[in-house]
């Protein structure tokens, strides 16, 4: 084992000398991709085996990642990358299948809802075909089932059901010995994602109580209310898992803290919602410099470079006019506007030029 590691280290060192890059194994990727895209080394390639329609606006992708992928735990998410019109786009989605499916058949699923105006989700829905290969990162996230078993309450909304599907499948398979309740909020009955799967789970896993609530079928919207929680047996002893749109998450947080729940017993995971549509004149926002562990507020059309310098940081830069790219930096989240072109960036991880990028809303930088 040790010998193998040393050997690998030596090879990696040699690769760096020969190919001038920290990931020498990816040097021949552009050629390999042409021969067999599953041989690409830079990311874990995953072949689209099947595309299933869940609802009118939600599809499940069945993926077969290359065997070197490290697997995941139920409730975790994963970054995928796809190339849309020459631009690589990274987005995070929850894995909706159980880790057992990966262990037994080498498959994982992502259940993806079409977001209005969403560049990647719409592309996935409209252009991704069976047989295509997309990039997969390693799984991450701590939205995990309690071990050893404890009573659990899931509150999910819309496509926030995806990590919960993975968790319920896993719990059913290992016959998780504690009461499990799912409150699942959907706009209308037609919007229930994975209805058959949920019903089948309920039939074969007796510990599960399933309560699907349509919010928009009555005249008055029917949102989460205190009574929904109070009727859950033994609610006080439950670990609560939240995943859904911001409105539902906020409502649930409020009701739970009213009932004296400790923060440690509430687990929530982010759920991608399209950011509020700010007008073009609404510039500035909270800028987080991750490596410097610093957070500053900005107003107006100050550029990221100016904001960083005002905060006492000295990012590498050159011309300050968008020519030399000395100041190019990784943006991990948030939207910026290019001062030269007026163009708005995507919300995901990408490289931006600090000297001509103006934040629009909160932005995180790898700086």
């Amino acid at each position, binding site marked *: 084992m040790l010998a193998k590691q040393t050997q690998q280290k030596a090879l990696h060192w040699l690769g760096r000398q020969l190919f001038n*890059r920290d990931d020498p194994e990816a*040097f021949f990727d552009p050629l390999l991709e042409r021969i067999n895209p599953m041989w690409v080394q830079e990311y874990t390639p995953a072949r689209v085996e099947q595309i299933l329609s869940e609802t009118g606006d939600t599809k499940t992708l069945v993926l077969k990642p290359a065997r070197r992928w490290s697997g995941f735990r139920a409730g975790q998410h994963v970054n995928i990358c796809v190339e849309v019109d020459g631009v690589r786009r990274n987005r995070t989605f929850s894995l909706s299948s159980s880790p057992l499916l990966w262990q037994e058949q080498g498959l994982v699923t992502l259940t993806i809802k079409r977001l209005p105006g969403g560049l990647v989700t719409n592309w996935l829905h409209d252009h991704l075909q069976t047989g295509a290969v997309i990039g997969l990162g390693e799984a991450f996230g701590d939205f995990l089932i309690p071990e050893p078993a404890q009573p659990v309450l899931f509150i999910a909304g819309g496509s926030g059901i995806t990590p919960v599907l993975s968790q319920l499948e896993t719990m059913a398979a290992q016959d998780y010995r504690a009461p499990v309740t799912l409150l699942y909020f959907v706009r209308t009955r037609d919007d229930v994602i994975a209805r058959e799967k949920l019903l089948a789970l309920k039939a074969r896993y007796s510990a599960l109580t399933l309560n699907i609530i349509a919010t928009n079928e009555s005249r008055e919207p029917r949102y989460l209310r205190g009574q929904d929680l109070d009727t859950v047996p033994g609610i006080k002893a439950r670990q609560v898992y939240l995943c859904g749109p911001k409105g539902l998450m906020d409502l649930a947080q409020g009701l739970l803290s009213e009932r004296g729940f400790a923060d440690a017993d509430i687990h929530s995971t982010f759920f991608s919602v399209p950011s509020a549509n700010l007008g073009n004149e609404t510039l500035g926002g909270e800028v987080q410099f991750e490596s410097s562990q610093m957070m500053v507020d900005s107003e107006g059309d100050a550029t990221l470079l100016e904001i960083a310098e005002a905060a006492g940081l000295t990012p590498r830069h050159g011309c300050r006019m968008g*020519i*030399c*790219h000395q100041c190019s930096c990784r943006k991990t989240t948030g939207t910026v506007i290019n001062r030269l072109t007026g163009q708005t960036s995507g919300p995901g991880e990408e490289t931006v030029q600090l000297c001509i990028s103006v934040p629009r809303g909160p932005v995180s930088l790898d700086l």
Partner: protein
Amino acid sequence: MKKMTEAQLAELETDLNAIREEVLADLGERDARYIRRMIRLHRSLEAGGRIMMPFGFLPPVFVAATATLGIAKILENMEIGHNVMHGQYDWMNDPSLNSQTYEWDTVCTGDSWRRTHNYEHHTYTNIIGKDRDYGYAVLRLTDDEPWKPWHTLQFINYILLSVFFQWGVGLHELETEKLRSREISWREKLPFLKQFARKGGRQAFKDYVFFPLLTFPVAPIVLAGNVGANLIRNLWSSTVIFCGHFTQDAETFTEEECEGESKGHWYLRQLTGSSNFTGGRWLHILSGHLSYQVEHHVFPDLPAHRYPEISGKVQAVCRKHGIHYNTGSFAKQYGTVVKRILRHSLPEKLMGMARAA
């Protein structure tokens, strides 16, 4: 330098911005396909050259292997590395094509290049005293620079610089002229020298130690071929780069006239300080499209394969504003470079006398 009013410069800026924005709006799959094709070609040539090299005991194979590896290095340095490091493909969001992390197959480190070339040279283009690329502190190419006796033999320096070009470029940031004048100390340059030694060592190890030893019985042949491939790349890239700014009509500027300049003035300086050469498609590709030096200097971060497409529009803007668009055949442009090096070997007075006689 051509004199233009601030209003005219603002109009020039608007005209050129329009060209730039049109290309930016159109960037997409076509550009991604182009650069990936170049990368695939480079990988194939590099692998092909390395595999053929040990069979170089057959003279025709030796020639083919050396040429293949030389062209691979040219393609990687000029069309891929130089252009990627300019940020031409940053919009693709591909970590392998990121301007700030790309490391190329030459002695100069990517970081040093990004400082001396992308920032200094492209910001202060042809400003005597600020653009250290102007003559590389080795050559006197304008009468604005005072003549010194050692300039008499500068043609020899030029030949040496071309032959060892990758080492010259690698050491450019050492600023030997400032070390000699004690303006800066060796201690300040220590971090740079460490980086230089690391990258230079890596490049020398690869071409002059590892691959020759890997094929031990024919090591001298492989070593000779690798030296040859590096030489081919050195001579070619030096020649292309010299044709970009040192042709007869390429203008130089003083610090005073560029103080607090507008973007329009910067554009004007790029247009008049650069020079193109004409040729076939592969000549352009192997020059990294620096044959379109004018377009490159005006729009350094647009994908270079777009330069031929926008050249007509740039020329139209030049005509409209009465700006000389400097171009000519490769032979003609290079001829004026050689003449310029020779002419400035001697002091202005002497040249004037020679002309009068």
